[in-house]
């Protein structure tokens, strides 16, 4: 859905998931290099690495596919 402007709700969703995913992924990598003293249960699965990567990938997909430039291309194709 469009706002009437050029940014879709899905673009904002991508932005949110992408930034959050990148922060979580980076934190997970840092924790592998420098393990914390107090570990969570199932720490060895490194959930923050793969969950952060999944969120980052989802965010990149939404952010790029629904970017203003791609939206303009789609609109031009329809008209």
């Amino acid at each position, binding site marked *: *859905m*469009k*706002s*009437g*402007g050029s*940014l879709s*709700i899905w673009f*904002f*969703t991508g*932005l*949110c*998931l992408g*930034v*959050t995913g990148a*922060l*979580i992924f*980076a*934190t*997970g990598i840092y*924790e592998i290099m420098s393990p*914390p003293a107090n*570990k*969570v*249960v*199932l*720490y060895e*699965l490194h*959930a*923050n690495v793969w*969950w*952060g990567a999944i*969120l980052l990938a989802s965010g990149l997909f939404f952010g790029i596919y629904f970017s203003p430039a791609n939206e303009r291309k789609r609109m031009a194709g329809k008209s």
Partner: protein
Amino acid sequence: MNLALLLLSSNTLVHLSGVDLVIIVFYFALVLGIGFYLKGQANTGEDFFMAGREMTAWVAGLAFLSANLGSLELMGWAGNSYKYGILAAHWYWIGAIPSMLFLALVMMPFYYVCKTHSVPGYLKLRFGVGAQAISSVSFALMTLLMSGINMYAMAVVMRVVLGWDLNFSIMVSSLTVAAYVALGGLRSAIFNEVLQFFLIWAGALLIPILGLIEAGGWKGLQAKILQNLTEQHAANPGSYTHLWSTLGNFNANPMGINWAGIVFGLGAVIAMGYWTTDFLVVQRVLAAKDLRSAELAPIIGAAFKMCVPFIVILPGLLGLALLRDPQGQLLRLVPADLAWSPAGQAQGLHGYDEVLPLMLARYCGPGLLGLGITALIAGFMSGMAGNVSAFTTVWTYDIYGTLINKNASDEFKVKMGRWVTVIGVGISIGTAYFVMRQQSIMDYVQSLFSFFIAPLFGTVLLGMLWKRATPAGGWTGLLAGTLSSVGMYAWVKLDPNAVRYVALSMDAQDQAQNMFRALWCCLICIIVTFVVSMLTKPKPDSELKDVVYGLTPIPKAENVGWLHSPYFWGALVFVIFIVLQIIFW
């Protein structure tokens, strides 16, 4: 108090790191940014109150669900599943799916074709100003009350979980909601609800995934629950992992309810009333761009609603199986009033409702914890934005525009909408502080809310499907249903033995009483509406066009294949719903 100290208090359930705080602050900045971005797109009444009626089925469907997916709902039902087991899933399956499909395929065409702005607005078209006035005034009052109570309860949770100051939580969250709804209206609320939907899933989905890995899958979880049952639990071991097989008698399950209460009270009345007539959720679907999207939106919402037990009910069950105290002993959660009492705090007790944050703290390290807390905050804000935007519309169109100033211009209504949003949040904040002083009111409000929803369903249903129903029948039925519900509630409060008549058994617990009271008051509403209608003069057919079955030409859907048909997707969702009941029977 210094802000950093305020946020990073050490005596809390979980401890946030710097990256967690960055994620939370980024979320607040983003929702405010969306509000400012959409400000210029909310210039007319249709834009501000109905989001221009241009939402796709997906956006309307996700917002429809998100407005209901508040954080108190998430935490409360996770706590209920710890307490009652998988029986709590009834509120997500039979207590939601059939009614959402009924809204989509039976009721939505009438709401959509008559182009009403609200559910009370439909009652005005069908039954006149009397029924609209009862419905709109009660809805507006209850919405503000619920909004304030949710705000207070959320602030209490944030204090327990994070150590945040009550005033800080109330002010920051509510002013953020006020800002983005006042700036962009319903469009901004819906945009943020879609965003919040994804955040809630992203933040909560990891808990059941990791929990099932730790428990050894569903079979391992069942075995661990059986091992951990206390004497109280052990009386009804099956009810913790079976949906229907223990509902033969009131005393065969910890909820004190039987199958009739679940099927007829919850499924046929309370759920139907909530999902089809509560304007808080229906408003999202009315913003759809066309009838097919309006029919598909609740079906999309229903498909995701069926999955919500995975992030709400399952964590509660996992908590029952896996939670341990720092000494490695099984952690027993207790009722909230005991846990939050000075004695409970001194002993380090935790309430049922804390099971979700406890599971979050169990598996989520820095970053993931911030995402999980953001999901809880997002849930609170989506629920509050839903209340505020629905209140604003009902006030502007159904109270001010109908009862006070019928000639208000569109431009004036938009201005009023922005101001009423801010004022509504202000009143909600006041309500939150009132509740802080009068906490006993929280015990009654859920019941108060149900007083209005169950009879309203009877009135709207008869209005849509029976053209002989008259204006006098409509408003007297609604009034009789509401008063009878209040009367039954008061009767049981004054004489506890009355439970045997109201809920058919002395073993019936609170939830069962709510179910049966809703059933009776809806039936009373229908009977009174029928009798009064038969004794009064009906409206001519010409005045009922577009609001009653048989007199409303439903637009034919454009020539779409079965893959785009709401009936196909509705049938598919219903089949999956049935299969789930059989699997967890």
